[in-house]
């Protein structure tokens, strides 16, 4: 018998269980297997009712975020072997701070609404038609917002954010980073429109700069940086509107 590793997976079926509980599985420990491979092994060979999301298995679709030993992880990019030395089973749970639909599947409607609220699209006073060619943008201008455009909406940053855990109205790291992605884009003229959503209480002011969001981001987006940056912009704008209300659009 080849080497194996134990997984403790949180199971919950709203139709059958009053409370979630852990179920233990023994899976083969293979050098190139990630946590997601182990879950698929269980689903295929042991229990087809185990429920989780996944798709690309290459860290870009953002579907397979879960808590692994208490940390938010993309399970397609988390090797089983990195837990092999620990004496306890690998614990797999749904992403923290989200309502659980079933087993490892969480509800992200809240994020989808918040994303829409920050107007994550290019806003122009005057749109150009495609026949007039591209908007000019130098590589330096691209670099100003590029990292914020790398967000894959995997929700790890929300699962890491203690402020979101306490206050679900907090608009949260990814949505703010994506708003900044457009605010910083040289082609965009919509920053003032996004201000209403971002500058309210649950917007950026709620963030206490814990910085966990930036630490867990698998794509090296820096939401904490985006939030701090925006706090500064918003403070200046507020100050301006107080002193010179005519200066704002």
């Amino acid at each position, binding site marked *: 018998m080849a080497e194996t590793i134990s997984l403790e997976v949180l199971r919950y079926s709203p139709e059958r269980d009053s409370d979630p509980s852990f179920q233990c599985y023994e899976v083969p420990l293979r050098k190139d297997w990630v946590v997601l491979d182990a879950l698929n092994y269980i689903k*295929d*060979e042991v229990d087809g009712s185990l*429920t989780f*999301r996944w798709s*690309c298995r290459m860290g870009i679709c953002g579907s397979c975020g879960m808590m692994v030993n208490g940390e938010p992880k993309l399970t397609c990019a988390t090797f089983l072997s990195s837990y092999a030395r620990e004496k306890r089973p690998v614990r797999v749970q749904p992403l923290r701070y989200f309502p659980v639909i079933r087993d490892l599947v969480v509800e992200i409607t809240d994020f989808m609404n918040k994303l829409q609220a920050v107007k994550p699209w290019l806003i122009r006073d005057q749109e150009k038609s495609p*026949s007039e060619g591209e908007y000019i943008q*130098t590589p330096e201008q691209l670099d100003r917002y590029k990292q914020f455009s790398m967000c894959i909406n995997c929700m790890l940053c929300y699962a890491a954010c203690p402020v979101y855990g306490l206050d679900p109205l907090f608009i949260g790291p990814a949505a703010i980073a994506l708003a900044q992605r457009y605010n910083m884009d040289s082609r*965009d003229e919509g920053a003032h429109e996004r201000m209403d959503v971002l500058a309210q209480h649950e917007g950026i002011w709620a963030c206490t700069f814990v910085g966990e969001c930036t630490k867990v981001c698998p794509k090296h987006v820096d939401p904490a940086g985006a939030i701090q940056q925006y706090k500064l912009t918003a403070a200046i704008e507020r100050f301006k509107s107080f002193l010179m209300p005519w200066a704002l659009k």
Partner: protein
Amino acid sequence: MDISYHDVLLVGGGGAGLRAAIAVAETNPNLSVAVVSKVYPMRSHTVSAEGGAAAVIKPGDTLDEHAYDTISGGDWLCDQDAVEIFVKEAPEELLRLEHWGCPWSRDPDGHIAVRAFGGMKKMRTWFAADKTGFHLLHTLFQTTLKYKTVTRYDEWFVTKLLVDEGRVQGATALELMSGRIQAITAKSVILCTGGCGRIFPFTTNASIKTGDGMALAFQAGAPLKDMEFVQYHPTGLPFTGILITEATRAEGGYLINKDGYRYLQDYNLGTPTRQPVLRNMELGPRDRLSQAFVKEVEKGHTIDTPYGPVVHLDLRHLGEKLINTRLPFVRELCLKYENIDPIKELIPVRPVIHYMMGGVHTDNDGATPLPGLYAAGEVACVSINGANRLGSNSLPELFVFGARAGKAAALAAMEQKSPSEHVVSQARDEKLRLEEQFLRKTEGRERIATIRSEMHTAMENGAGIYRNQTSLEKAADKLRELRERFQGIRIDDSTRTFNTDLVAALELSFMLDVGSAIVESALDRTESRGAHQRTDFPFRDDQNFLAHTLIYRNPDCSTRLEQSPVVITRWPPAERVYGLKSEAEKSRSEVGHG
């Protein structure tokens, strides 16, 4: 039973589906649009596309050259009128994406940058580093959020198209979160569900790529076209099947065998040069490169691994700076999934199932022969890809034909009455079928994973890079057996909430249907062309096969095959020649089937 009413229904929310949704909204802002997707749209497989999107934008390049590269790359099976539309509208579509915010990589002066790509004679591939599909999909998805007439059905799985009086009028769908089954009716329906790579064991395709739209159309009576043409991408990582983009070779990467030899020079793909040369060596087309790999295996020139033979992709000479700026995702994937750093180490690669040239038969506006039904993107076959798609043509195809299908479907919807009562009773029947066949069944014994894995083996052995009559007939027999055994499928999960076991069973039944269509079409084409290589018929046969294969499902579930003519406008069939060859050599050279 719940019923919702819309004017246009999109099945699938990837690049083609979202582009089509916007096209409907722009054609008529009063139309109600539904986007039904089994995953949140930003999870769609468009997200995985790496290398780029081809469109003529730079001085010195012409639409005719893009058309010629596409047509010769497709081994003359492309419809040339469709290709002419495609190359003409591609630049405008990519510019539209730029105007919507896509972070295209730029030249120092701020204009769009382009890179080289396999099979293209000029540099015309737009890119957003090596995450082009990701950026395009998120740009499109975020842009659709501003259209109030677009209603999303996120994480809904379509099980059947509703057809009444010869017209498609909606679909039955399962909401994963609640387990509710309902009818979503519409005056026109557009399929944008992508490909079906998961029919094969080793694929770059995401787990969601199970040919749903192809099967839905086929079952509803629409023909599938050119299904025998399945593209292997020459450079996938072993085990995971993760794609290493062609951009690695466009930037100057080498493919080498176990002796460190650039073996492509032995297969009529030109002579090695230090710098990459367009349409030469590593920048030859995907079908030819994948076929060369098989020949190297036969000669014993490959490297053995636990996941089968591989060759090496060598990027080391490109240097850290270029790899980090132009190919950052490739480095990230190699480091995270193979524990290899391409700056210092060789990358093990092998051919891997990547793309379906075939799909639901459509005209140039995405319309299928079944009234009310449209298709765009990889699920469709217009055909601009012929017998072999060129890298970086699939992304612009999503937008050009997504937009055309959206517009045509919108105009058609404006002429139609509301759906009939029959449609609703059909949906009720479908709900009953799902409950009886799957949810309330207790006696099933066959495991989903077992049938799926036997299907994988049958497809790889029977319909891989090289096929012949014996291998294909064996695969056909096996698939027939698996379809019968599927009747005894066991569903472990009998609850309603987010039942992914039920979804896996439905996807498997779709894949068995589409797999059979691939095998039957491949049996029928007794020639070799592009990605369809028959060892028993090794040459291209324009006399008998300069034609599309159409496969229909009859009401009694038997199938029938037909041919339809290829549209030739300005480029008569010729030999496919790659490499640095003079015109004189061109006429002497042996082509294509090594």
